[in-house]
């Protein structure tokens, strides 16, 4: 049909836009990372791949291999994200499970609304709320002190000083990451748990499985794809997060890779190194990105061809 070609032209402006402001932008990062610096410490990008200068890249890699500063930062990032993710799953899965399998009608609408609400509240406002609550005379600080949790944390080495929740504490950063990202994990989990056919679980119960056994042997395995999807969906932005540690810690002791990039690129004048770190971070995340894209594209195509 001749109209097929006409339709295709509609996509042109969007394609051009994304090519320039996304693809070319990313290429600019490559060109800067593999470029040079001038006397004013401004980056001089090398656009031609044949000219690429791996000097700065090697410098960073050498630092990592020899256990230097950047390696510490990367390892800390993995630790923070890993722990935050585990905690998020531990809290998020039961909540998603409840919402998917034990709510109906009006209640479900309400619960879903409350679960979706954090999406639309400004992330910074949610962190601001905690900054207020955890400051020296904040309500949370007082509460945790009274209830003894503060003492527990100090005893466990998770808190350095009384009331010093916001003073460069890794535990605070991790908990803040959990608070910030858990809503983004709960919804994909909910979606997959909702889709599991109730009858399969009933069949398991009919065959003699207890509630717990039915869960472990039927529901949990069936929800694994959703868990993976949710984890990937949340891990990607978490790895790039810098503002959460900045807000609840404000100390370079808790620097993760996002902070490092931000400090070099936006706040400082080492844009080339910053670009190098950005490339390394992206390579690290490519595996996650490809996995997520492949599963989304399959779902997209299935609906598009239907």
């Amino acid at each position, binding site marked *: 049909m001749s109209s097929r070609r006409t339709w295709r032209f509609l996509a042109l402006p969007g394609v051009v836009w*994304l090519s320039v402001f*996304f693809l070319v932008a990313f290429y600019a990062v490559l060109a800067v990372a593999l470029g040079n610096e001038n006397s004013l410490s401004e980056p001089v990008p090398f656009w031609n791949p044949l000219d690429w200068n791996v000097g700065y890249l090697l410098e960073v890699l050498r630092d990592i291999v020899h256990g230097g500063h950047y390696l510490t930062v990367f390892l800390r990032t993995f630790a923070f994200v890993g722990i935050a993710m585990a905690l998020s799953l531990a809290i998020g899965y039961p909540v998603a499970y409840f919402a998917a399998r034990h709510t109906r009608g009006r209640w479900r609408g309400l619960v879903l609304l409350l679960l979706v609400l954090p999406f639309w509240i400004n992330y910074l406002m949610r962190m601001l709320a905690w900054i207020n609550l955890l400051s020296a005379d904040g309500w949370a600080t007082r509460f945790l002190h009274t209830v003894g949790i503060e003492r527990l944390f100090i005893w466990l080495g998770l808190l350095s000083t009384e009331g010093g929740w916001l003073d460069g504490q890794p535990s605070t950063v991790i908990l803040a990451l959990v608070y910030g990202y858990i809503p983004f994990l709960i919804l994909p989990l909910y979606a997959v748990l909702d889709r599991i056919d109730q009858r399969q679980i009933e069949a398991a119960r009919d065959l003699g499985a207890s509630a717990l056994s039915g869960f472990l042997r039927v529901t949990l395995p069936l929800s694994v794809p959703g868990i993976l999807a949710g984890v990937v969906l949340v891990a990607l932005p978490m790895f790039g997060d810098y503002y959460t540690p900045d807000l609840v810690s404000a100390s370079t002791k808790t620097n993760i890779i996002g902070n490092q990039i931000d400090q070099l690129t936006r706040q400082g004048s080492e844009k080339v190194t910053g670009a190098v770190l950005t490339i390394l971070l992206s390579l690290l995340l490519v595996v996650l990105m490809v996995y997520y894209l492949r599963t989304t594209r399959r779902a997209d195509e299935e609906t598009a061809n239907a």
Partner: protein
Amino acid sequence: MTRWFRNPWGKPRWLVVVTALYIVWSILPVGIAILFAFNNGRSRTTWQGFSLRWFTGSTGSVLHDPALQGALKHTLFLGVLCVLVATPLGVALALGLQRWRGRGSGTVNTMMLLPLVTPEIVMGVALLLLFLNVFPGLGLGTKAQAIGQVTFTLSYVVVIVRGRLVSIGREYEEAAADLGAPPHDQLLRVLLPLLAPAIIASAAVVFALSIDDFVVTQYLSSDASTTTVPMLLYATARGAPTPALNAIATVTLLITLATLALAFFVYRRFAGGGQAAVAAALEV
């Protein structure tokens, strides 16, 4: 109490408890922050009575403080600008992609999905370097911020509109063609009216994403005049500011929620069913 807990056919009560606790933990802090926006004193941690001074008072309030005013205005301006550019661009892209059969469609589709999975700092750095090295003429500032925001919100429009396109199907266009309508009329007289709810919903989503955006907007800002509310929150949160900060955050939140509620009701009224709207929100 024991009966309630141990009923084998009832909902596992511990799940109810966990969920309830989670929801409280999730929302209460924000509720408290909003509460303190109405604090009578300058503290953000000690309640000193109810007052609207941080919203409408003569000094230091959202209404009268120049810095707060400026940030709010700039935020809303960027929001509107972003909607005006991203929505038509995204609708066109969705239509083009949906009808595209053959080479290149897979690649374009992937390219469209990439911004959704790229961490914001990567986008921020990329756009910063782009504007510094490739478009020095444009430079940083409002235009750059707008462009950056459009770039990452575009994909949301495409996903929402495309979802609606799929459920509409092709038969209305075929009917229109059968009755003599050339392709452009099929689009204008039939498809676009049917897509209107999805377009409005995606415009609302773009607006909400834009006014809440932080990283890209910060990376592409130039000076104090290009500060937005999220940037303001970030810069002063740890300082010793007044509850005016809570107030402006509350105002922004209200604007977001109002926009979304409006879009939800429009979508529901014209596209039939809150299911669709929730699904659209979940896509995001």
